[in-house]
């Protein structure tokens, strides 16, 4: 029972990803949606590192590092879009963006 397998990490990241997906779907505030997206990205990183444990190859750790860089870019763009939407609509929720509906 007390042994670590790669699948344990896979299931762990599956749980974390599901929590982030739930937050992304059900929070109204845009900033909480971005934070939930960060949680999902972190789950993906754990998954990549678990792959590096399966193949004993540092390649997947580098992929996770590149994912972190992409997440940083996403955070910068997402926050400036958040502020833009807030100044445009006055409400920091995604419900305000309904002019295309």
């Amino acid at each position: 029972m007390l042994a670590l397998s790669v699948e344990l990490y896979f299931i762990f990241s599956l749980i974390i990803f599901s929590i982030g997906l739930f937050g992304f779907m059900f929070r109204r505030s845009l900033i909480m949606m971005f934070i939930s997206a960060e949680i999902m990205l972190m789950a993906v990183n754990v998954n990549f590192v678990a792959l590096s444990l399966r193949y004993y190859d540092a390649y997947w750790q580098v992929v996770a590092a590149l994912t972190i860089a992409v997440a940083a870019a996403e955070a910068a763009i997402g926050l400036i879009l958040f502020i833009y939407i807030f100044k445009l609509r006055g409400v920091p929720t995604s419900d305000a963006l309904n002019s295309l509906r």
Partner: protein
Amino acid sequence: MFHVIFMYIFGAISVASALSVVLLSKVVYSIVMVLVFFISIAAILIGMYAEYLALITLMVYAGAIMVLYLFAMIMFRQDTSRAMRGITSVSIPLILVIAIILTIIWGTMITGVIRVDDIDNIAAANALTVANFSESLFGVLLIPFEIVSVLLLLAMMGAILISNRMEKKVPPRNKSGTKSGAKAGAKSGVPIMNQTVIDLRDKPINTATGLGSGNISGKIVE
């Protein structure tokens, strides 16, 4: 043995903190809990022989990104009365479909359709050093590394462009956005966000800070 206890403890902490991020209604509490989440994820990464990634996670996520979110959050008054979206007719089938897919994946893992084998700690510790990391980073993955540098530059330029456009002209406010906000405020009885921050757009924005922080803070603190 030590690895297993480490993984279970920090896995439990990270799942609990992620749940509290999603379920807590105030954004400040959520951001503090997401800090706890990233620190526990960094601990798990140390247990997975990814010490350098744990360092990057602590520096980039816990150090930079969360502080950025805190700064963005400080400027706005949040309406905490309706933090969660209501259950609509679309969301229940969506949740069902996602739950079925996740159950299938989980079931195939647990029942052994996918091969399960234990991690060889000595081989992992030999194969996953920082030296091997750098060999992969500057060897096989050199071109993605360069592309990521261009991507970061473009993201920075995009953010600056959008904020410049925000200074010059802001399009007229849409009626539907203010109306929905007014409805939410009137229903719950909290003061409406629009009335406190509506002066943002009309006053000249401070070009030094770029975001007009003086105006915003003066309006919100009251």
